[in-house]
């Protein structure tokens, strides 16, 4: 009886392991393997040792992609967390139309990132300049996506617009667990809104803050769809993210091996950042 049971569990687990290995682990290992070669994606190849890795650090296009991706991810993460916490606190207050408002604020989450990007592409290119012209606002008249220095802000705006939805829901899940009488007691002690926030709300939703920061950061470091739809990495390569660079170099540029090395570095960076964030934020959670 016992043996038969174990047998059934194995029949379930082994195929799952094999499939996952074939379609996930094996390609990852292949990527790591080829990162030590000079393979173009076709034809002959030979081992080149660490050459690809060293070249990534000397490659200005790659360094720019890392620079842009970090700048974008850090700023978007901060903005998303500020806005979603504010909206979540608003939705958690005694408001009218609670369900409808919550549904509208969550709506962007269900929409295709790529299509949202295309829509905002139009807004930046035609709608905002049109408004700028008719109202005489100089700043709005030009298309920021066409400006090397400003294009990244357009991508931040779209990414934040869409991501706030998900993070708001997470914060809301945290806020509803805070008992009302804590605030009442604090009011009796004469605490203002600000003190209530820092002494009650924030410490109690700290775990949600941690999840939100880590998830948002990880997602933004992988930014791809928004950029394809908004700038295609341009103007020039000023908004080329790491994912986009790997995609382009790997599929269009014959840099299979080189971009594999880049992808390995990228993977290490994401793991290190996630671990640092978790450690740092968990420590703060424990302290507060």
């Amino acid at each position, binding site marked *: 009886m016992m043996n038969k049971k174990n047998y059934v569990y194995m029949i379930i687990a082994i195929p799952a392991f094999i499939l996952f290995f074939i*379609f996930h682990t094996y390609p990852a290992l292949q990527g790591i393997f080829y990162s030590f070669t000079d393979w173009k994606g076709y034809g002959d190849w030979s081992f080149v040792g660490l050459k690809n890795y060293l070249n990534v650090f000397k490659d200005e296009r790659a360094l720019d992609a890392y620079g842009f991706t970090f700048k974008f991810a850090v700023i978007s993460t901060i903005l998303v967390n500020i806005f979603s916490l504010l909206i979540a606190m608003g939705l958690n207050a005694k408001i009218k139309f609670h369900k409808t408002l919550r549904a509208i604020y969550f709506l962007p989450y269900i929409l295709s990132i790529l299509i949202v990007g295309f829509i905002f592409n139009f807004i930046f290119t035609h709608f905002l300049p049109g408004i700028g012209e008719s109202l005489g606002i100089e700043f709005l008249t030009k298309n920021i996506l066409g400006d090397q220095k400003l294009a990244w802000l357009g991508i931040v705006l779209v990414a934040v617009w869409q991501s706030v939805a998900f993070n708001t829901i997470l914060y809301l899940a945290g806020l509803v667990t805070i008992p009302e009488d804590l605030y009442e007691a604090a009011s009796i002690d004469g605490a203002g809104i600000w003190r209530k926030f820092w002494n009650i709300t924030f410490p109690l939703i700290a775990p949600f803050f941690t999840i939100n920061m880590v998830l948002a950061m990880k997602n933004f470091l992988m930014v791809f769809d928004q950029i394809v739809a908004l700038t295609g990495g341009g103007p020039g390569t000023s908004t080329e993210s790491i994912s986009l660079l790997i995609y382009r170099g790997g599929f269009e540029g014959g840099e299979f091996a080189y971009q594999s090395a880049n992808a390995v570095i990228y993977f290490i960076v994401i793991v290190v950042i996630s671990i640092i964030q978790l450690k740092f934020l968990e420590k703060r959670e424990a302290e507060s």
Partner: protein
Amino acid sequence: MSNKRTNWPVTTLLIVGTLLILLPLYLTITIAFKTPQEMAGNLLALPKSWSLDNFTQAIEMTNFFNALGNSVFVTIFVVIFTVLTNSLVAYAIARNMHKKAYKFLFYYFVSAMFIPFPIIMLPIVKQTAAWGMDNLVGLIILYVVFNLSFNTFIYVGYIRSIPKELEEAAVIDGASTWGVFWRVIFPLLAPMNATVAIITCLGAWNDFMLPLVMLSDRDMATLPLVQYIFQSQFSTNYNLAFASYIMALAPMIIVYIFAQKWIISGVMKGSIK
């Protein structure tokens, strides 16, 4: 906060804030009904006529129903197979966590969540092409397998909270492990199944990157991919483009309008885990 009075300042602020979300959608809908000549006027104005010309033209140009069919096909099968198989695998792991091999399997699946897709992107494309999997069925298989990572994590936690006594009673009645899972455990997983189904559905429906790199045949393109392919043809005619975007977004928006309560709580449950 202690009284039951409505907080009107916050309500008002939140209502004003929704404009930021609704305005882009309003623009998309109205522009989809306008003619190129109307675009010269006030962009915020309503269209002069609610003609469906842009839609019929966009349907023809992008072969919309073909793409819709592809997206629906992929999404439905990914959702069904993900829920059925991933819960079963998680069950096998959850009931054997005291054994080294299963514990290893758990961490093996879960740790894969940290691996960014670009690291497997280049090899997986070569591999799927070589094995004749660069099609919709291949896409479904990859989604179902990749989903194991996150779903093992959320299912295992949930299954371990289900008391074993429930299963033991069924075993005494003569049910096999197989029977126990489908007749006792799977129904108990209903809330988790709903969460997984919703997250999987949104993920498969809206994904752009995997179809982009994997599908070589245009006839197999899913809805987001079609918008990308036709972008260059649209560039001169925003009205057609927006009609096409609306049709690509509409199915999910319609589902959302009717099921938003379950979708929000489903996503919420999945992420608190």
